[in-house]
């Protein structure tokens, strides 16, 4: 091959020339250009292990297929991902992978998102070639508190081992035994030291590693998945929220190289429990004359709230609106208007931890604290500053009991009925992160979309923006009611917000990958 005169070297895949960068492997170039090359042990973040052998492609001029994950591109290289030889090699690998695989898909949590299943449909014949008894290996082994390992389902791709070596550098896992008795073992005394351990469940291409939290709770095809962001801290890791029949069942990281790469922490992943609380407030509630709570329609509750706030304004007590640090920009914007009508200002409270690390977790736990500051909202840090007319609370830790009690608020928007302080006379249900749409600003100044799913939470929750603007109309007849699209237009142009990193102006969420 003579030296190419073109400025960029190219590699030929399926007859088409594609440019590559120095150090590129065939699989990277193929994936970059949308060419499907199946893989199990390959992950773009880790060193190639080259052990699963499913990514084999035909190298033109070579009688033997080669693995695309480790094959470095060089000028003149020509490979076929779709030829008979490539298909034969993959089908052969599938046969080997399945010979000792338990084929317990009907009771396996991975069914529906299992790469072994997918490629088996694509490549397998569906016919068993042997009746050889399968090798027996340990099942139901705990890996730490959250993960369960099944060595029989495991295809020994070592992604989990390499994750603990190369990404977290904590080395809790290793391969043990040899031959078809090889299995993943814990090197530490049964516990993970990393706070990112559950990423190995997502990494696992099969059902060998399952999350104790999610396993056996739902078949995937019954669930609704939306692309959203984690509200566990201000990092704003991109996630996919999976929910079914009023319950959030699972959070999984979604790739975003600018925020969380492919990962999320275990605390964020499990930080959805409040959305499924047994004491969720499902409908508005109003205190009657005797002080007892009774259910109300939104209309009744809005009337009662307007009356209570008008009275409150008359009493010249602080007309502030105290928001949860995880409230969206839209909610904060409307809260600011409501507060202005009450003669106060919108404020926010958010928990600050001390567990930040150099990877993903940050100390600031308010998922939109940065947005609140950009909007000019003051931060309430102690009970002395907590006086407010209206409370908006999703998470207990952001607006804890002492702040709630000290606020003296008369109207509250809460996810959980137990968060309503004694002073409140009208309580509205507030959606959890899984039920609300809106913009959040993460710690890096990136504006990201929180997207709710209709499958999560109580069915009758109305957005805070809508309810608050109804109340505003009652208090101030001249107020313009804005829908979310109009709000977004204002937010994008607002001082303090316009300079942030906004995604393109489209209300369409990104495709859900899982």
């Amino acid at each position, binding site marked *: 091959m003579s030296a190419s005169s073109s400025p960029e070297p190219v590699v030929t895949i399926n007859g088409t020339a594609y440019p590559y960068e120095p150090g590129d492997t065939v699989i990277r170039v193929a994936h970059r250009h949308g060419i499907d090359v199946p893989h199990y042990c390959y992950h773009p973040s880790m060193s190639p292990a080259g052990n699963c052998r499913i990514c084999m492609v035909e190298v033109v001029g070579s009688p033997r297929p080669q693995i695309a994950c480790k094959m470095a591109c060089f000028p003149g290289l020509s490979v076929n991902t779709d030829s008979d030889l490539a298909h034969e090699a993959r089908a052969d690998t599938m046969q080997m992978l399945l010979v000792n695989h338990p084929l317990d898909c009907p009771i396996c949590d991975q069914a529906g998102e299992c790469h072994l299943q997918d490629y088996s449909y694509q490549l397998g014949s569906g016919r068993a070639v042997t009746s*050889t008894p399968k090798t027996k290996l340990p099942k139901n082994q705990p890996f730490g508190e959250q993960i369960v390992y099944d060595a029989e389902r495991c295809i020994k791709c070592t992604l989990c081992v390499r994750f603990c070596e190369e990404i977290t550098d904590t080395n809790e896992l290793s391969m043990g035994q040899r031959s078809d008795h090889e299995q993943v073992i814990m090197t530490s005394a049964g516990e993970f030291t990393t706070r990112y351990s559950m990423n190995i469940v997502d990494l696992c291409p099969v059902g060998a590693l399952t999350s104790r939290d999610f396993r056996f709770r739902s078949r995937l095809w019954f669930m609704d998945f939306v692309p959203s962001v984690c509200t566990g801290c201000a990092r704003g890791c991109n996630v996919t929220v999976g929910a079914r029949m009023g319950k959030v069942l699972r959070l999984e990281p979604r790739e975003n190289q600018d925020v969380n790469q492919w990962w999320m922490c275990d605390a964020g992943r499990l930080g959805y429990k409040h959305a499924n609380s047994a004491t969720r407030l499902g409908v508005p509630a109003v205190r009657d004359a005797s002080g007892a709570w009774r259910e109300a329609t939104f209309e009744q509750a809005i009337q009662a709230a307007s009356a209570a706030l008008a009275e409150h304004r008359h009493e010249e007590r602080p007309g502030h609106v105290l928001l949860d640090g995880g409230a969206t920009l839209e909610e904060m914007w409307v809260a600011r208007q409501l507060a202005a009508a009450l003669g106060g200002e919108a404020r926010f409270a958010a928990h600050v931890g001390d567990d930040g690390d150099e990877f993903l977790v940050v100390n600031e736990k308010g998922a939109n604290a940065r947005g609140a500051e950009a909007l000019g909202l003051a931060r309430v840090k102690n009970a002395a500053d907590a006086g407010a007319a209206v409370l908006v609370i999703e998470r207990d830790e952001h607006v804890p009991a002492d702040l709630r009690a000290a606020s003296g608020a008369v109207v509250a928007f809460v996810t959980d009925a137990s968060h309503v302080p004694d002073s409140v006379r009208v309580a509205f249900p507030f959606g959890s992160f899984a039920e609300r749409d809106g913009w959040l600003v993460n710690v890096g100044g990136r504006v990201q979309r929180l997207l709710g799913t209709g499958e999560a939470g109580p069915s009758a929750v109305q957005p805070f923006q809508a309810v608050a603007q109804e109340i505003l109309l009652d208090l101030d007849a001249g107020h313009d009611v804005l829908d979310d699209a109009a709000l977004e237009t204002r937010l994008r142009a607002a001082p303090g917000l316009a300079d942030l990193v906004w995604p393109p102006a489209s209300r369409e969420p990104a495709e859900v990958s899982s």
Partner: protein
Amino acid sequence: MAAKTPKRYPETKVLSRNFDVDKAWTFDVARQRGAYRSLEKALGSMTPDQVIDEVKTSRLRGRGGAGFPTGVKWSFVPKQTDKTKYICLNADESEPGTFKDRYLMELDPHLVIEGCLITAYAVGASMVYIYVRGEYPLSIERLWGAIEEARKEGFVGKKIAGRDFHCDVVVHSGAGAYICGEETALLESLEGKRGHPRIKPPFPAVEGAFASPTVINNVETLAHVPWIIENGGAAFAKQGIPPDPADPRSVGSSGTKLMGVSGDVQKPGVWEFEFGITLRQMIEDYAGGALEGRTIKAVIPGGLSMPVLTGDELDVKMGFDDLKAAGSGLGTACAIVMDDTCDMVQACENIAHFFADESCGQCTPCREGCHWMEKIFHRFDAGQGTRSDLDLLENLFRQIEGRTICALADAAVWPLRSIVRKFRHEFVAKMSPDEQRAEAEARSARQPAGVK
């Protein structure tokens, strides 16, 4: 069948020159018999490149099984690098039926160390690791003893032989895994990790032990180096089988080789010959031939990892290219002999069991396939094999060979496939009567009448 060669093929004692000398493993005896003279010669009168050239001239090929030209391998080591370079001596002699390096390490450890040091000088290495299989306690003891003696005498450590050359030698004991004889698995193991072979490239000469340039050679290979330095590469190249003049790429099989025979013979053992002795000469003249009243059915010429030759195919010269042309390979040149009492189905089951047990578990085809093959052979032995199982086996051989990171899978396939093909009748004999009838019908349908 060829007539038995009347004249006995001579032994040539080069590597084995001290094997019969009492206490040749001690420094004084070894030194008296010439130990470290070649090292002194190399350090005193040769540049590193001259040493490499001399070894290239000798056409010395690796004695560990693959037969790669040693001088060429050394020349891959980068000259300019800030990294420490290493010599790694592969003394993990774990190939079944192979026990030649053990003789060298136990009976002439100073020769082994000298070879390592000359190699270190040639490539600019300052550290030698000798990775010895853990089941060789005497080898480990003798090597350590020799290292300490040589250190006292100024041949290991700083300022070797009074020259400006520093190199230390360390013995590292393996833990009994066959896979750690594979050079990159050996490096992983040496680094304290699980013995999983690495994907090549990068080759060890560029990125080996501790991500530094490393030369890995078999014990016997480097033990040849002192003689080559002393007598010149050309003298070495004159011995053995010359390159095929018709093939410009042919390297031939130069020099002598420790060869061994084990299994169903009268006198198993290890001898040193120039390349060129036939397998039959070695077995009959030196190993005493088959046991009383028996005939040789099959021989694996080098270790376990090479295709089998039948009793009729033994008149092949022991040489890299000759055995390859005969459909097998030299391997470690330590033959395993099976006589007519050997059940080839059970032999396959045994071979498959070995590889299934020793597969590191990394690559899918080898991890799953080796044990799968063992299960199928077990089925044959239990009388439950079928003709379709033989087809399945052929399919598995194809699926496993050449589809893995290292050559262990190939090593498993080669002997098994050759036995299944050459001794199909033994597998058929263990099938049910129905299967046997079907096989007979298929055979007669395939062949015209009158052809046997």
